[in-house]
């Protein structure tokens, strides 16, 4: 591999100031499963790699006891999210997504922050986090700031990070009552493959466990950036969740999507699959929400 100097700062301030000193010659690295491949392929050639692996000794998602928010450090590995009992219980939509990213070997090393800042349209991690109304916390020379994760994605490979800024955390609001979600990665195989389509549905139910109080329908690879289908969400709101309403919501979501032809699939097929999978994930979310409420 091409030579570089590996810098291992212990704090965010140190990392940001190293990046300031070396500018374009430096690149941040966390798990390295994308950055090292890009270096090997000659797509990037940094002289300095600034590791974020040793900052913030926070290796698992944790619950903020005061606010009830789930904090996921950007340098948490996919495997740590996958094996977190907290995530599996309260945020199954996130579990669905991370358990099929890459392979065990990749998930043991690759971080959720790395998945997000790459901002590829097919990143599985982003969809459930957006469906859960996640916020991104960012740190840079100008200090700390926060943005809705949905707005964090600006285009393929482009995210809302100024030069030298670091994504430090994703914060998920406390789970709503009677809520659950489900995510599916649609492709030719589950492991070691980018999705042809990613569909996440998060539902909050009224006390009758049938009427939709709030819906989030998020799509990956259906537009240059992760997409929230607001018309489909609005359609579901206040309606009884069943096959009929979800079929209609799926159709609306398909119309809202901006799918295109690519090597992994053609647009018309993707649009039809949006409709099918929104319905399936909606039914799964409904079942999960009901199951959670059972005494």
């Amino acid at each position, binding site marked *: *591999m*091409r*030579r*570089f*100097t*590996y810098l*291992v700062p212990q704090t965010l301030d140190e990392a940001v100031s190293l990046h300031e000193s070396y500018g374009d010659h430096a690149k941040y690295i966390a798990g*390295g*499963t994308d950055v*090292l*491949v890009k270096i*090997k*392929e000659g797509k990037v050639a940094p002289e300095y*790699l600034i*590791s974020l*692996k040793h900052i913030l000794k926070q290796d698992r998602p944790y619950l903020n006891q005061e606010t009830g928010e789930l904090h996921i450090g950007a340098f948490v590995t996919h*495997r740590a999210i996958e094996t977190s009992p907290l995530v599996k219980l309260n945020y199954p939509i996130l579990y669905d997504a991370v*358990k099929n990213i*890459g*392979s*065990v*070997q*990749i998930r*043991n*090393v690759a971080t959720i922050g790395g998945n997000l800042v790459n901002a590829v349209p097919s990143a599985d991690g982003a969809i459930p986090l957006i469906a859960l109304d996640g916020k991104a916390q960012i740190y840079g020379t100008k200090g700390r700031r926060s943005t809705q994760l949905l707005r964090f994605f600006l285009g393929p490979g482009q995210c809302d990070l100024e030069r030298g800024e670091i994504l430090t955390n994703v914060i998920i609001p406390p789970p709503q009552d009677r809520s659950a979600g489900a995510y599916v990665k649609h492709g030719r195989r*589950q*492991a*070691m493959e980018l999705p042809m389509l990613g569909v996440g549905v998060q539902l909050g139910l009224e006390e009758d466990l049938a009427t939709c109080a709030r819906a989030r329908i998020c799509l990956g690879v259906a537009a240059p950036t992760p997409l929230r289908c607001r018309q489909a969400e609005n359609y579901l709101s206040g309606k009884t969740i069943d096959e009929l309403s979800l079929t209609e919501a799926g159709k609306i979501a398909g119309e809202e999507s901006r799918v295109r032809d690519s090597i992994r699939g053609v647009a018309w097929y993707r649009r039809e699959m949006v409709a099918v999978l929104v319905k399936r994930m909606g039914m799964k979310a409904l079942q999960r929400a009901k199951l959670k409420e059972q005494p």
Partner: protein
Amino acid sequence: MSREIAFTFNSNKIAITVEDHWTLLHLIREELGYTGTKEGCGSGECGACTVIVDGMAVNSCLYLAAEIDGKELVTIEGLTSPDGSLHPIQKAFVENGGIQCGFCSPGMIMSAKALLDENSNATEDDIKDAIAGNLCRCTGYVQIIDSIKSVSGYYQKEAPQVVAWKNDEDDRGE
């Protein structure tokens, strides 16, 4: 740049100088001379380079040597006993035809070991998940899955007990 690191390699403590741009795979094969770990794709797709770091399976081709500092590394060479006898997982691969050309075997076996160390009662689904990142172009995976199943406690418990007939000595009551 180079740096001094110290880590545990197959139960032996070692200290060595590494270059920042070396991968763990380079360190293992080219510097330490242990060639059991293979390089396949070099980009994390094939799993031939799988080793165990602090109990977790990782692709050594995408892991910087500098990051092994202070950690515990196990490669395929670390599975065999000092007297040369094979590890139960290795034996299982030999006995069940889990090995044909042998190129994927070290990585496959390390993935299996990481799984069984964590969950000694792994089911077929657990096994498929654990080896999803290991490509094999010979076996079609069936024999590999059978090999790992044969050492998983789950199948030993589940397997129905088979009582064989004993020659003619005990045919009373038949």
